[in-house]
């Protein structure tokens, strides 16, 4: 029983282990790396990616994929900015509207995927163009949000000493993670997501609500992207239609590094959390290195990613054998 449990969680443990090794090695090599500030930055800078990756994990667990998250995020930052600054909406209302629209957009994609049996890849590819286009139509340039609410809340947070604060972004990220873990593991909806990902036809034959669950999953992911957008406006104080280009690949990579299988049905929310931290650590290492020219930077980030995945695989296989 115990052995079984650990063997199922093995990829996860391997991931955590490799992250620690990576962090430790970098800490030994670069001055100032081993600091509270670097760890905090990891959370601050990836909060929005984290939220989006969690939504993406739900989608991947259900056997789908969502390429539209980067564009939806960009679109919601512009929408929010223009609602607040151009229409004068109260900030909470504008945020709520953005969240609802993001979720509705995701839900609509889910509905098309389910109703017409079109591959998620394509529907969300169309969604990606649509949301990006909409963002550009809303504003072709970045919009500043200058508002008392933002001034007050963007720097608000738990003081950690040494002038460091655990700001709203990381807080939201961590709470979303906690909720996602409970939902994925402990609720019917969460288990249905795993079921659909395991085998859609079986899930349907077992009488599970396939359609509703699928639509909800994409709505969740769309909502997550919108929330990510909101967090990014809080962190940056602006909306920008070009933000989040290629973000979908980062979100997918985070989920996969965390052990979520792209064919669906297997994976963990904590894994995605680790995946986000790993991507962040890799980037931080490259920034600390700071002497790579762009060509080597790309080779190195590809190499680090590959090395990480290989190491994770080797550890998982080794420990299964012994």
């Amino acid at each position, binding site marked *: 029983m115990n052995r079984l449990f650990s063997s199922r969680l093995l990829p996860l443990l391997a991931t955590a282990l490799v992250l620690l090794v990576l962090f430790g090695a970098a800490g030994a090599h670069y001055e*100032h790396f081993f600091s509270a500030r670097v760890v905090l930055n990891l959370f601050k*800078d990836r909060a929005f990616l984290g939220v989006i990756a969690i939504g993406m994990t739900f989608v991947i667990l259900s056997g789908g994929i969502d390429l539209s998250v980067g564009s939806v995020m960009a679109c919601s930052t512009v929408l929010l900015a223009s609602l607040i600054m151009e229409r004068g909406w109260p900030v909470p209302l504008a945020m709520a509207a953005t969240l609802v629209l993001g979720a509705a957009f995701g839900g609509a994609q889910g509905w098309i995927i389910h109703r017409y049996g079109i591959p998620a890849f394509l529907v969300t590819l169309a969604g990606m163009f649509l949301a990006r286009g909409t963002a550009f139509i809303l504003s072709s340039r*970045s919009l500043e949000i200058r508002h008392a609410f933002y001034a007050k809340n963007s*720097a608000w947070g738990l003081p950690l000493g040494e002038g460091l604060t655990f700001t709203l972004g990381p807080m939201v990220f961590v709470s979303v993670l906690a909720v996602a873990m409970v939902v994925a593991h402990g609720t019917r909806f969460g288990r249905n997501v795993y079921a659909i990902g395991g085998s859609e036809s079986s899930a349907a034959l077992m009488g599970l609500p396939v359609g509703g669950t699928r639509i909800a999953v994409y709505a969740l992911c769309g909502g997550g992207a919108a929330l990510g957008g909101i967090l990014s406006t809080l962190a940056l104080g602006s909306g920008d239609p070009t933000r989040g280009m290629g973000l979908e690949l980062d979100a997918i990579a985070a989920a996969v590094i965390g052990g979520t299988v792209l064919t669906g049905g297997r994976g963990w929310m904590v894994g995605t959390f680790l995946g986000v931290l790993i991507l962040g650590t890799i*980037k931080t290492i*490259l920034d*600390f290195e700071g002497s790579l020219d762009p060509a080597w930077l790309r080779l190195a980030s590809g190499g680090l990613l590959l090395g990480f995945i290989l190491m994770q695989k080797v550890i998982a296989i080794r420990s299964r054998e012994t």
Partner: protein
Amino acid sequence: SLAACQPSGPSGGGAGSGGKRVVGFSQIGADNPWRTAETESIKAEAAKRGIELKFSDAQGQQEAQISAMRSFIAQGVQGIILAPKVETGWEAILKEAKDAKIPVVLVDRGVAVADDSLYATLIASDFVAEGTMAGEWLAKKCGGKAGVIQLEGTTGSAPANDRKKGFEAAMASHPEIKVLASQTGDFKRSDGKNVMEALLKVHGAAITAVYAHNDDMAIGAIQALEAAGRRPGKDVVVVSIDGMGFAFDAIVEGKLNATVECNPLLGEMAFAALEQVLKGEALPKLLVQKDRLFDESNAAAERPNRKY
């Protein structure tokens, strides 16, 4: 289990490796020759001054630029050079830098912040002015009457927005100049050629001028014009922005009519400014690059001076 960290931020001139000065440079990307020239210039200047440069290539993402700046702050660099991707969104990170007493020098475009003490100075080109300059020159060259194709840069990018704005402002006073079509060539030579190829079939002889947001797209357009049997530089006026070396060559060959310089060699100015701030000297908030226009009258003479 993290080791207690030292208070970060610049601890006199001693932080970094072995008393060497460390400066961070956050670059937007490496996706075009102009930007590569800028990066090279800053790297070369750092090497010349014996400064260790922490270079970060954000691959086109503002978020990556911000996290790079956070890493710089965590490393306790003495100064940061930032080439901001867009105008907005820098308030928080600039404040973090200021709190850590690290001066930030902005290069090639500005930021929108309420409190201009957040950065030391801005060494910038004025994209709107570039667009206007190109427009005015084109209007003069065509005698106030033309059918123009505008090749825009990457949709939503600051230079594309501003160069379009500046150009259209110039056109406002020339009612007989018609912008026949305005399409994005994504700042790429290949897309510039593809778009031009297509538009030539639609507008044909009505096209008498091309305005491209960068030199690359202009070269692509010239190739398309030639393939269609037109004579760029002669029966079609081609104007672009950036002033890259190859654009000068094209002017000398008579295929490109003019290019507005947008100087990427900011290294020397940037580091000079940084030195001044670190010494505690006051600096003007804006050091505008005087961008010049080159056409057949002065391109050949200038060509040997071009380093990029």
